[in-house]
């Protein structure tokens, strides 16, 4: 369609459309009355109401009116512009109108959904419509700018979601920076023993993916590293990554672990993080046998060659007091470097995938379960390590007192579904608790009691898995555990009593057990708030990263070019994390393969004649888009960097900054419109 070139002094002709949205809007707003009212307003040529404006016939209605009634402005009163602004701009453009001559009015989220008085909601719909009708004549035809996109991708977090997204993108030929905070990738999944519902071993399926992520030519794997700064915008993010010193030169280390064998500490002595402190390691160690990268690291807090404690800047001081048998063992490989410091890498990427994962609920917050008080109370992740062949007991389920448990209680919903801790259902605990019940029984032949509130096993194969575990003869007791305390009749064996109501038989149970396993829920990572700020994301009230739309844009964020994968967005199991990681990779690829970004032309510009060169706008710009032209003594806005936040516009003392789509006359007309009297 040939663009409509507005003639000089051509009168403004507005087409107005109010959407029923089924009953979403029409149920609370008298849409016919709104259309009738708007028809009486100045410049309005057409005023209609229609069942679904976003439908194809709805869009065609607008296009037909543009052609037949020579409309040059469109106002659609419907849902949030977040959902359909693009739809209506495109529809208008297809009919030859400049897309920025379209204005949307949100009468659903801002009106019909939140009010209960039909008369007042209808009047509000009229007032909102009036504001747009008064504003839209001032709209100018604007042009969309295209900016090239950097094809590289940053993935933050090397758990299963980050690994899967990285491999998907790398296979498609994109360059990926995979940044992992810990010394190895693998995340929580690497700690699991077997996975439900198939009971295949977690590492058997994960380690090939870890290994290919570690060796893929398109993946820069930066473990023991953290993102420290993010600037820029979609297509062109400047990111600084801090590579923390592991005191081993990654490129030179072969992973032979001869340094570990040679360490002056003959025996492992220090709490082993990977095994949650249940096992021991040396000052120089490989996090776990299948770690990727297969590179050892040195813990400066306990290594004799360092002084104990950190310097104020976080660095460690070398004491050089050790015999350094590790260096000797390393020999010509020369991979050990006690003087390593933080290394900062600056990279440019076009898109970012957040896959920062979760943290398990700290069971000390429910003190009546005795975690951290009674040694035989474990959280579920600890039990995963205890039954894992590569764990501290090589898969032999032995308690801290050296005994093999004969009776085990598994407590569901610890730190989930609870007003006093976390309100959400963590989604995975019922199933992992059933899985642990099976594995504990398999390892020890113990009697296993599962205490649950509601058994939640949705998903493919999950109910069948529940059925299988029930058949194996587990005690499945419907009641939340209220108390765990030592069995005073039992002397010093550490036996505990688990007290709960069996709500299906109406009886209070006090079951003596040797081991209590707490089915702890999933929580946002404590660092999520810092990350949210650094990456300019939104979080839900609970602290999970917020997706752009819970159903239709589940991996997008409100920041263009940043996507979500895995549990950082909310609790989910491995299949869902992998599916989401694939979706995030596809979304990133959709941007990259298009080759350019279309920028909303809502940028600000400076009226050079009026700028006094006071520079007050320059430090205020959050995107450092404003520079100072020394020769002309005027401020200058880089359109490519401007995100249209309007801060400079509001701050300019001489009023010499103008923002497209938000010009003073547009905003003042809108205010006058919304305040104008509407029919009772």
């Amino acid at each position, binding site marked *: 369609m040939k663009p409509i070139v507005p003639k000089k002094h051509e009168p403004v002709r507005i087409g107005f459309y109010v959407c029923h949205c089924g009953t979403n809007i029409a149920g609370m707003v008298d849409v016919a009355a709104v259309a009738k009212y708007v028809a009486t307003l100045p410049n309005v040529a057409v005023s209609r109401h229609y069942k679904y404006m976003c439908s194809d016939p709805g869009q065609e209605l607008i296009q037909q009116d543009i052609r037949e009634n020579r409309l040059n402005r469109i106002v659609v009163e419907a849902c949030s512009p977040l959902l359909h602004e693009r739809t209506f701009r495109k529809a208008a453009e297809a009919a030859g109108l400049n897309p920025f001559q379209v204005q949307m009015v949100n009468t659903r989220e801002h009106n019909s959904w939140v009010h209960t008085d039909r008369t007042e909601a209808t009047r509000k719909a009229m007032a909102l419509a009036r504001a747009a009708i008064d504003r839209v004549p001032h709209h100018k035809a604007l042009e969309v700018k295209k900016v090239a996109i950097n094809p590289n991708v940053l993935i933050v977090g090397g758990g299963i979601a980050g690994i899967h997204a990285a491999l998907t993108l790398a296979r498609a030929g994109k360059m990926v920076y995979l940044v992992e905070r810990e010394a190895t990738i693998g995340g929580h999944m690497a700690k699991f023993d077997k996975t439900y519902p198939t009971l295949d071993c977690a590492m058997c399926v994960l380690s090939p993916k870890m290994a290919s992520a570690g060796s893929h030519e398109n993946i820069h794997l930066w473990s023991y590293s953290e993102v420290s700064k993010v600037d820029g915008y979609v297509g062109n993010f400047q990111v600084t990554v801090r590579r923390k010193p592991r005191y081993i030169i990654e490129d030179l280390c072969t992973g032979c672990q001869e340094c570990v064998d040679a360490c002056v500490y003959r025996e492992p002595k220090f709490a082993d993080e990977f095994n949650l402190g249940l096992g021991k390691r040396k000052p120089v160690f490989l996090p776990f046998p299948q770690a990727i990268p297969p590179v050892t690291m040195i813990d400066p807090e306990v290594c004799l060659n360092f002084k104990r404690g950190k310097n104020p800047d976080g660095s460690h001081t070398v004491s050089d007091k050790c015999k350094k048998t590790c260096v000797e063992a390393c020999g010509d490989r020369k991979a050990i470097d006690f003087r390593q410091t933080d290394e900062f890498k600056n990279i440019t990427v076009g898109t970012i995938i957040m896959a920062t994962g979760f943290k398990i609920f700290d069971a000390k917050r429910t003190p009546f379960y005795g975690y951290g008080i009674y040694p035989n109370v474990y959280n579920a992740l600890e039990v995963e390590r205890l039954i894992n062949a590569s764990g501290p007991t090589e898969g032999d389920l032995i308690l801290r007192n050296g005994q093999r448990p004969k009776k085990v209680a598994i407590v569901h919903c610890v730190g989930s579904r609870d*007003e006093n801790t976390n309100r959400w259902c963590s989604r995975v605990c019922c199933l992992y608790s059933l899985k642990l019940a099976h594995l504990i029984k398999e390892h020890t032949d113990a009697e296993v009691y599962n205490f649950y509130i509601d058994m939640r096993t949705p998903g493919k194969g999950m109910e069948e898995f529940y059925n299988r575990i029930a058949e194996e003869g587990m005690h499945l007791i419907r009641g939340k555990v209220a108390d765990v305390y030592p069995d005073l009749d039992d002397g010093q064996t550490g036996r505990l009593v688990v007290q709960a109501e069996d709500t299906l038989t109406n009886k209070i149970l006090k079951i003596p057990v040797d081991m209590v396993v707490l089915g702890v829920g999933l929580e946002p990572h404590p660092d999520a708030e810092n990350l949210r700020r650094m990456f300019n994301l939104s979080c839900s009230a609970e602290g999970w990263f917020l997706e752009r739309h819970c159903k239709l844009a589940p991996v997008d964020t409100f920041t263009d070019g940043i996507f979500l994968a895995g549990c950082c967005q909310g609790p989910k199991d491995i299949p869902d994390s992998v599916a989401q990681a694939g979706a995030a990779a596809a979304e990133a690829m959709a941007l990259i393969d298009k080759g350019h970004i279309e920028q909303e032309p809502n940028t600000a510009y400076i009226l050079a004649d009026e700028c006094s060169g006071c520079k007050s706008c320059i430090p205020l710009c959050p995107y450092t888009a404003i520079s100072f032209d020394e020769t002309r003594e005027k401020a200058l806005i880089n359109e490519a960097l401007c995100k249209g936040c309007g801060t400079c516009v509001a701050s300019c003392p001489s009023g010499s900054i103008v923002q497209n789509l938000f010009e003073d006359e547009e905003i003042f007309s809108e205010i006058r419109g919304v305040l104008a009297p509407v029919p009772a």
Partner: protein
Amino acid sequence: MVAQLDPTVVDRNTTLDTLLQTPAGRRLMTCIQCGTCAATCPYGEGMDFSPRLVINMLRRGFLDEVIQSESLLRCVACYACMAKCPRGIRLTDVLLPLVKEQTLVQQSEIPAELQKSLQNLLRYGNPMGESPRKRANWATTAGVQVPLLAQRQSNGPVEVLWFVECYTSFYARGQDNSRATAKLFDALGVDFAILGNEEKCAGDCGQLTWESGLFETLTAHNLEVFNKYRFNRIVTGDAHAFNAFRIRYPMYGLQAPVEHTTGFFARHLPQLRPLLTQRLDRRVTYHDPCCLGRAGGSYDEARALLEAIPGVKLVEMVHHRANAICCGGGGGGMWLDTYYKQKGLERLSERRVKEAIATGADVLAVACPYEVSRFEDALKVVPHDRPMVVRDVVELLAESLA
């Protein structure tokens, strides 16, 4: 974390018929029937209808069956169910007293001990039926001046209106608490006064038992007396009076700040600490009163006071802080011991002292006057090798004064 009581959500006019229309009632609709309340209830095993079932019977319209049973007579208003409820349902302060009230109304026979005590409360203003004219007699034995508010010379408001309460006025062992408190006020130079014989029981157990009418009578009396005088704050050593003043009295107009003696003295610890010079080389375990701990969120104050005493070594029982087991005296339990015995139920005070004995402590410290007599009685029947005494926190503090 466990739930904290928010006094503002309770409405004095709520009845069983209107409950479901209130915010507290709508919470009941969110109950997931997890049974935490039943399993944490110290008498959960003795109830045909546990709190969980009470909620569901109410939601299904079968509450009459609950009222006709005696289940709710076992509720000792210890807040244990409410503290752990994952849905934040207001069991102890809203639902259970309403059901309990109807239960007693429907009973053909009320346990005699309870009936007598409640009658005494109405007639004499104290549950033991002592003469109200003797209420302040203990003050002559305090060893320090205990001023009466009515005889106060100064025109300004008194800083502390000390609400002494019944057990601490009439019972010999209760008076020890009062004498200790008086000594501590005196040592700290606190400007305080008592109401003397004008005071009547604050009525907390009346409210939490069943008798909302009795409670309102006592409230009206005490508020009238409060209105005669000018004072900056109310301090009481009775955890139940503290509970009533904090939660229910404001609904009837009380505005003054209220503190329990443990809170008050903990706030004055910087001034008090130098005065605690007598060493008490004792192993002490502290029993959290329900009305201070779970209901009031005050766990650290009493412990801070105990640890300020030179020589005291604090040890914890298995169940402590939010998970503490009630002494069995709340919600009318104080006057139902015979009834519980008849029903074959273990006295909770005995269950509690067994835990105290297991700590190897010499002293079982308490902060509620009910507990002194309850635990001393229990110690008489529960065998123990090592001698153990029961002392209020203020008694130990006073003992440590030079």
